[in-house]
């Protein structure tokens, strides 16, 4: 189920990138795709009836879901954040340079 949700989210992200003309929306769509993929990664590690992979008083003995995807997702999230921040900074500059975030107006401005 979560697989489907994440895939649909990817689809929505792609749809957003394709159909929108505002660069900020592109960036958001990119973030959406990132998130969807992260969701997918986490869900590949889930095992029915198992618990979070932390040894604690409640789960002293290993009966855990796959912890590796969770670790990977942590990395992926942070990387996504970095890219997002860069994109946002560039958007500020684009706005400053062209006065707009609309793709078509920018292309007109470039010529």
């Amino acid at each position, binding site marked *: 189920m979560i697989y489907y949700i994440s895939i649909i989210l990817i689809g929505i992200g792609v749809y957003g*990138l*394709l159909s*929108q*003309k505002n*660069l900020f929306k*592109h960036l958001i769509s990119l973030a959406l795709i990132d998130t969807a993929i992260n969701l997918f990664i986490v869900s590949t590690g889930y095992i029915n009836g198992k618990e979070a992979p932390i040894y604690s008083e409640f789960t002293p003995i290993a009966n855990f879901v796959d912890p590796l995807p969770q670790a990977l997702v942590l990395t992926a999230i942070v990387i996504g954040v970095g890219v997002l921040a860069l994109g946002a900074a560039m958007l500020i500059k684009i706005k400053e340079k062209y006065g707009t975030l609309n*793709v*078509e107006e920018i*292309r007109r401005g470039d010529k």
Partner: protein
Amino acid sequence: MSQLLLILFIGSFLVYLLTRMNWIIGVLANIGLAIYSFYRLFTFKVGTSESIFSLIVNQNGTLVYSELSKFFGIISLIVAISVYFFLINWLEKQKNRAVFNFFLALITASTLGVFFSGDLLTLYIFWEIMLLFSVLLVQMGKEDSKKAALNYLTISLIGSYMYLYAVFMLWNRYGTLVIKDIVQKISVETSIFKWAVLILIAAAGIAKSGIFPLHTWLRTTQGSSPDAFSAILAGQLEKLGAYMLVLTVAVFPSLKMFPVLYGGIPVFNYVLIVLGMISILIGTLMAIKQNDMKMLIAYSTVSNSGYILIGLATMDKIGFAGGLFHAFNHAIASVMIFLSFAAVIYRTKTSKIDEMGGLIWKMPLTFITYLVGIISLAGIPPMSGFISKWMIFVVLVKKGMFLTAAAAFIGSVGSFLYVFRPLAGVFLGQLKSKHKDVKEVPIFMLIPMLVLVVITVFFGVIPGPVLNMITAVEKELNIQPLEHTMTVIKSSVGQWNTLTVFTMFAVGFIIAFILYMVFPKAKRIPLTNQYTAGEFLYNYDLYHYSTRFYAFFERLYEKHPSVEKLYEMFGKFFKDIGEFLNRWFYSASPSAYLLWFSIVLLAIFWVRW
């Protein structure tokens, strides 16, 4: 041979340095190198081979000295030496002299390298060096020479890459690149493979010698390249094409490889003959139209290359000899013509026929060079050009190839038309007022031109020496050698004696001269004193018929299909595609990038899942 090539390549750097110091010394050094290699050509023993380094691992490059390489080497060095002599004065007005000289020396070196090459890859390497530097030389000419150089480069590269493709097909199949070995192996080849290989190899020759359909570069390139270099281009570089054609039809034994059709000509050679026919027609008809004299001769080159190709492709003892001899004659004649043009342009700064006139009164020796050049080019006895044309005619008629013969006749008679146009427009007729002060060119420009005149006349009267070389080549290539003596050329359908013809011409001329001297002397009147039906002439510039000389004839084929336009269309098409790609793939918005991204994903998935 590798020693000679090494000397030439190193020497060319020396030439560069010397030219930077003093350009006359540089030119002299260049001449020295060329004369030295000319001397060395006679000292080499035919049949020797040397191995040099190669670019393919585990494979030595080889240099082989054959009769063929000797023959072509001599042609190219005669051309080179005469043009270098010409440069002693001519170079004064050229920019970048050092580079010019350097490139020329490199071109001569690599041209010899091509002729010496014993394997296909070494040949290609020298070929490309020659190409590169000739392109760089071409663009040193007039304004539009930059574009012309690119045109030349593109078409030459099409040819040479097709050649390289064939080289690798052979390498892949036989594991060797040595021509001798390949020839042995390909003779027994039965598949379509040999067709592909030979057509691709021929493409290089076709592109270089300006045969249809790769002839389009000649007009612009020769029209706009530096004037002295046009001579090299016509005399030296286009003969590389002829060499390549010899390689295609004779060194690769087309007689053994292909079934023989009508007239005892291999079926592959018929393809070439058809191309040669088309070239003759196109070259002739287009040359008649040109107003720029260099472009005019450029088209004549197309036509003459057609003759060479037809002669070679017949693979008959007399036709093949005719092709080779025609290569020789055309080299010499076109160098004479281009040098005389260079002399004219040197003085008048224009190459448009209708901007000149009456220059014979100012530059008589240049005129004589041109006159002898065109007589040889048009194939009129007693110059050597006729001998080769005669041989080609004879073989075509003997074999009953009437259509080809008709094309050859049209080209031959048509050449009277086009060579006469500069003669009438530039040298004869009324002198333009702006050219009143033009002088004959300096002595060092005249010397090579007049020497070439002597050579042409000499070989027109006594073609024996050249024919000896040609028969040696024919023997080497397992073609029956041409029967001849010093002055008599024999064929199965008759013979003729060059010396008799020349003697009779001399006798006739003397008779005419006696008559001329016997009868009362005429009064010399200026050209401006004309029969004008009683009208008074006020502008002699207008009294000169040179614009659209053959307008009435051109009218017959005004609307002709043009390969050049076709290629231009291709070029434009590519550029439009480039623009399209740039627009839709490379300068697009992020959405478009993702669109292509997704489409690739969908496509791969759809095709491969």
